[in-house]
């Protein structure tokens, strides 16, 4: 039973206040994109063992979406950050580098 901190309202709540939204930082491909890009966007997933970047919504709370950096092997939470970004902010990357040296996730490291 995870505890997550919503970066918008500051609540540190238990998992049942939140709703998981899957892999983060997906680039949307619309009309005009290739079949392969579109398939990747909709279906291909990192599904990593270790550091993962994912989306959550504070559904039983302030209603905001946000990002979480989490380890899928230990469930350690490295931090949460704004939904309005295309990549994890430096603070999160720094934490990841400190706690999981050599980490990489898609094209971030």
């Amino acid at each position, binding site marked *: 039973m995870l505890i997550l901190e919503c970066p918008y309202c500051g609540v540190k709540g238990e*998992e049942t206040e939140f709703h*998981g939204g*899957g892999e983060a930082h997906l680039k949307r491909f619309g009309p005009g994109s290739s079949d392969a890009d579109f398939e990747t966007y909709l279906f*291909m997933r990192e*599904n990593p063992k270790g550091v993962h970047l994912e989306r959550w919504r504070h559904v039983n709370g302030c209603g905001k979406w946000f990002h979480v950096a989490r380890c899928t092997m230990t469930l350690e939470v490295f931090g949460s950050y704004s939904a309005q970004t295309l990549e994890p902010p430096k603070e999160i990357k720094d934490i990841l580098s400190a706690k999981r040296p050599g980490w990489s996730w898609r094209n971030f490291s």
Partner: protein
Amino acid sequence: MRRYSAFAVAREAARFHSGWERAWRSPQPKKKYDVIIVGAGGHGLATAFYLGKNFGITNVAILEKGWLGGGNTGRNTTIIRSNYLQDPSAALYEKARSLYETLSQDLNYNVMFSPRGVIMLAQTEHEVRGYKRTAHANMLQGVQTEYINAARVKELVPIIDTNGPRYPVLGGLYQARGGTARHDAVAWGYARACSDMGMDIIQQCEVTGVRSSGGKVTGVETSKGAIDCDKLGLVVAGNSGALANMAGFRLPMESVALQALVSEPIKPCMDVVVMANTVHGYMSQSDKGEMVIGGGTDGYNNYTQRGSFHHIEETVRALVETFPMVSRLKMLRQWGGIVDVTGDRSPVIGKTPLGNCFINAGWGTGGFKAIPGGGWATAELIAKGEPGPLSAEFGMERFIEGRFIDESVAAGVAH
């Protein structure tokens, strides 16, 4: 292999069971095999078994990082049914179910297949229509099911409350030849038969790398050294993503925790398997007397084989509502398994970007019931290099084509 029988047991009893031989050998890996199967779970072992039985390919190694049958094969709620809606699923699961009918005899190992019947409860008008649709589809697919009314449900499952205040039971989809089997025994029976055919089951052997050249696999790196092969089958359920990563491709799958629990054992009180999808719970009674209860999946990626307790709560309250007497039982044990879920929640049996590497994965919550059929189809795929009719629709290319096999349809969205 010495055959198992009541006579053999009696003979051994005379000498305090000192003469039983190993159920499977414990060999060291050879340098090279015709086929390497990664994963000695039910699907991996069944794939190997049918490679030998149907295609005469026995120079096979099955590599297992832990102990055989120790993944989802030994962690599920043992339900076997084939009342699927879509043609490709119905074909695959019915093949599996029909193989289960004779599996104990085929393997000379009692897997305790118990076709005690499976009922999926209809508790909304929408479900009634969905299950009637499935019944029609099943009739044309050669799957024996029927839509039954609430009175018949009560007759088959006396402990059910069909007049619950919240979701009265309106009817159900009944598959009389669905049921359960002893999950461990399925893995052990296949393992014994594979070993007997001369295949090498190598436990405690973790694959750490996939070697390839020119778009073809040449072998694997393992914790017990490098092993070469002509063909490679990846049959590792929740670890498929990691293996695919080693082989250099991605999968349309995510791994999540699925939970289950059992009650303390009680005397027989329920002879069929009941699934209540509206309230999200399913239950059967094992031969030991435990009520075996399946729950839901967490909504996040997880490899810990543990899940969040609130899913257990949801499941239990659904069952208390459906079977009120459950309230006076106790939960003995809960556990989790890691399941790999695809974009359409149907499995993948198919080719990979590497020409001689094949995959069987993505069974989500329904892998156990498919073991013989999945193994049969995967063996055919590996032996021939091309999918046969059973697996033709289950290739990964369906995601690029937009051709899904969606079984959530019968449950569907509310109107």
